[in-house]
């Protein structure tokens, strides 16, 4: 197998693994955060506004971890620096 196909294979597999593994943690923690927030809203409906605001900000923080993984996998698939390096080197 030559270098270019090795780079292509490695980056595609790494992109898939990045998304798959990187989505586990944020998914679990977002579920837990929403569960706690729903329980808190059910207990204190008057505090719904501040709870919802805090929940959204927290969800965005958690979600950004998954977004980092997504950006990394997009870079690996569409804008891979090693790929263009090897294509240039291989002619």
């Amino acid at each position: 197998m030559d270098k270019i196909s090795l780079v292509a294979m490695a980056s595609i597999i790494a992109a898939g693994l990045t998304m798959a593994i990187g989505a586990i943690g944020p998914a679990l923690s977002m579920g837990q955060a929403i569960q706690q927030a729903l329980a808190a809203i059910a207990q204190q409906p008057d505090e719904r506004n501040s709870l919802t605001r805090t929940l959204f900000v927290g969800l965005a923080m958690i979600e950004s971890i998954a977004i980092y993984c997504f950006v990394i996998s997009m870079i690996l698939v569409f804008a891979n620096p090693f790929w263009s390096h090897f294509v240039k080197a291989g002619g």
Partner: protein
Amino acid sequence: MEIVGIDQISPDQLIIWSWGYITIPVTILYTWLVMAMLVTVSWFVTRNLSSDTHVSRWQHFLEVIVTSIRGEIREINKKGADDYVPLIGTLFLFICLSNVLAIVPGYVAPTSSITTTAALALCVFVAVPYYGILSNGVFHYLREYFQPNIIFFPFHVMGEISRTLALTVRLFGNIMSHEKVIGILLSVTPLLFPVVMQTLGLLIGVIQAYIFAILSMVYIASATGAHEETRKHVTLVSEEGVGA
């Protein structure tokens, strides 16, 4: 119509007009378009404001927006909102409009380019020490970097840089990923499902604008309010000392 290809992460390479050395990418065009829309609408509405019982409907509209932005800021920063409304409100309105306009065909959201979001996050990066020094003075602001110990200085600096990076990548990643999802769906189920995703995109755009504004306000509030808390703590400790 999607004018950014599926294999282009950022719309910056898309040149819409060029003459000699001057090139105008599509990002700059739509950034200026959004800014022009915001400025002209606000200028036309605020040209004849009235304070009697008859108020034009556009003035009502702007008043609702400004009042709710000010209310949200006051929820975070208890000391008042008037200093922060220009910066935070502008960030929110610009990001919100540039995300929401994405349902217009042919439009490319400027926030789906990492340069725009980096510029917005750099504004926050500069605004945090500005407001911090303005409210606490240079010495007290700089002293916060060495709390509780001089060893913590690099961690504070790293935190400032990494949260700017986080603001950048969060907004860019959300908007860009949504465009790519729609692009992929168009090739899989072309008829109705992308429309549903576009509707979800409106929600995501508004929420991301809200989160960007709220997070910048939280950062600014933590820079301006830290001194207050330490002073309260010191007085509390001294009162306890007197009591004992």
